[in-house]
């Protein structure tokens, strides 16, 4: 309990410290708010419109989660394909890399033309931007399963699927969780850029709306909200990770 309190203090302290630094820099160097507002201004700008903002945040959160959910499923499946089959690896990796080098913001208009303005393109963008890290890490994890461990299963006459679920998947879990941390942040980015480009709600909409009025503090208020939601989801994964793949990190405290 005491240790946990200490941990929370360290985590919170660092973030608070960063904000203080930011606030001080803005005041000290007299940076105009349309360049970079102080965090206090950003937060202050949220308060009067709090009810509206909350609705936007909720919209962004759930589209992000929906896109992220699809990304996890698709990422694991593609990662399994790429990580276990040489021909699929050769065939798919270049395509995936090429696709992911392209800014998704450029694809949003295409999605909008197909699926209309609103939630669907946001979910799809969140998905499209975030599945690749999962593919790469799952594939790498699966490809580095030590053959000895797989042999334990094979010699028992297990099916491929059984060996996969009992050796390859658990072994790849640390890779998978690492990729989730990256993917969730990207999913937020995806949902927001889609909202920036084409939506009537969500933090992205809030930001463009604020930005078209040069209410830059409110733009940064929106950014802060996204960051906070990202951190909250990260915390969920961190807890899951401790539970599920603690075995891989036994050396960390030594």
């Amino acid at each position, binding site marked *: 309990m005491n240790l946990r309190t200490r941990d929370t203090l360290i985590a919170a302290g660092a973030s608070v410290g960063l904000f203080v630094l930011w606030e001080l820099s803005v005041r000290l160097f007299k940076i*105009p708010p*349309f*360049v970079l507002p102080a965090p206090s201004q950003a937060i202050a700008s949220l308060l009067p*419109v709090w009810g*509206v903002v909350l609705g936007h945040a909720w919209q962004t959160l759930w589209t992000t989660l929906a896109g992220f959910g699809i990304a996890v499923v698709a990422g694991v499946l593609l990662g399994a394909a790429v990580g276990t089959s040489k021909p699929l690896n050769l065939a798919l990796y270049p395509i995936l890399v090429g696709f992911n080098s392209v800014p998704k913001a450029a694809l949003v*208009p295409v999605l*909008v*033309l197909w699926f*209309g*303005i609103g939630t669907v393109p946001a979910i799809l963008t969140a998905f499209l931007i975030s599945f690749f890290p999962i593919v790469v890490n799952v594939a790498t994890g699966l490809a580095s399963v030590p053959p000895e461990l797989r042999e334990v299963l094979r010699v028992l006459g297990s099916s491929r699927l059984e060996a996969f679920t009992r050796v390859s998947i658990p072994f790849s879990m640390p890779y998978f969780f690492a990729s989730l941390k990256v993917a969730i942040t990207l999913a937020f980015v995806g949902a927001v850029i889609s909202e920036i*480009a*084409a939506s*009537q709600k969500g933090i992205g909409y*809030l930001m*463009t*709306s*604020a*930005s*078209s*009025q*040069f*209410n830059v503090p*409110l*733009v940064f208020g929106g950014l802060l909200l996204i960051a906070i939601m990202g951190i909250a989801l990260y915390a969920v994964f961190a807890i899951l990770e401790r539970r599920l793949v603690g075995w891989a990190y036994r050396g960390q405290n030594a």
Partner: protein
Amino acid sequence: QSRTNVRFTLDFAFQGPTAPFLLAQDKGYYSAEGLNVSIDRGFGSADAISKIAAGNYDMGFADFNSLIEFNTRNPNNQLLAVFMVYNTTPAAVFAIKGKGIARPTDLAGKTLAAPAGDAGRRLFPVFAEAVGLDASKVNFINVDVPLREPTLARGQADGITGFYFTSFLNLKNVGVKPEDLVIFKYGDYTQDLYGNAVVVRRDFAQANPQAVAAFLRALVKGFKDVIANPDEGVAAVKRRDGLINEALERERLLLALNTHVLTADSRAFGLGSVRRERVERNIRAVVKAFDLNTTLRVEQVWSERFLPPIAERRVTGPAR
């Protein structure tokens, strides 16, 4: 009786100048005409035109010059302008006083920043020709919309192009005093260029001529109401986007109305109408400035058969 659905996109965000469209909706003018109208914000004129052409929307509010370009490049997917809202283009060049730019010809050798698709930037050659400036002597930088006015304020460009009522207020917002500004409104140097119009996909107009006409009847009422009572218009905007600053949007609305809507032409011929020879000159100017290879006929970009009778469209100004 069955109501006709009209999906309508604005050119940009819900802001003061879009109040007539919104107020007409709030007051039930579209419904009264048997229309079921939905209005979405837009992401620039070019984007709005693409979306209407692709069938995501049926009608919209977009730059006439962009429409000319689109129709030239996509002869199979043409749109029509059916109601001219901005009788002169709101495009303008902004610079800071005392930095060597006093007259338009001083822009030679200078750097201007603007979004790639900005009307003022695309139409700059027309303006340049009108003022006797070699457009190729002016250097342009692409900046995203949110960066345009800050770029000028920070001195990272000598000037910017933008819609008069947008950039003027944005510059005020980033701390540039109006009295420190040098502004060249294109409309003050050339009468060849129109601004934003109500546009419709040609096949939609053909299939639903009554709906288009009905839309315009309702819209004219909206305009009249907003001109008579701008505050009511701003309230309609506020209902769409709770984040707007009402005083700012009121100012923007009045600038747009008094400078670009309530012009001599619209007092003479009524709201929404154009002069044919101006349209022809406009097309020629665009073809030259945009380096297009065919010149369209007026009928390929404009139709006035949906306009309400002139009596309904008569206005006096100004709004206050």
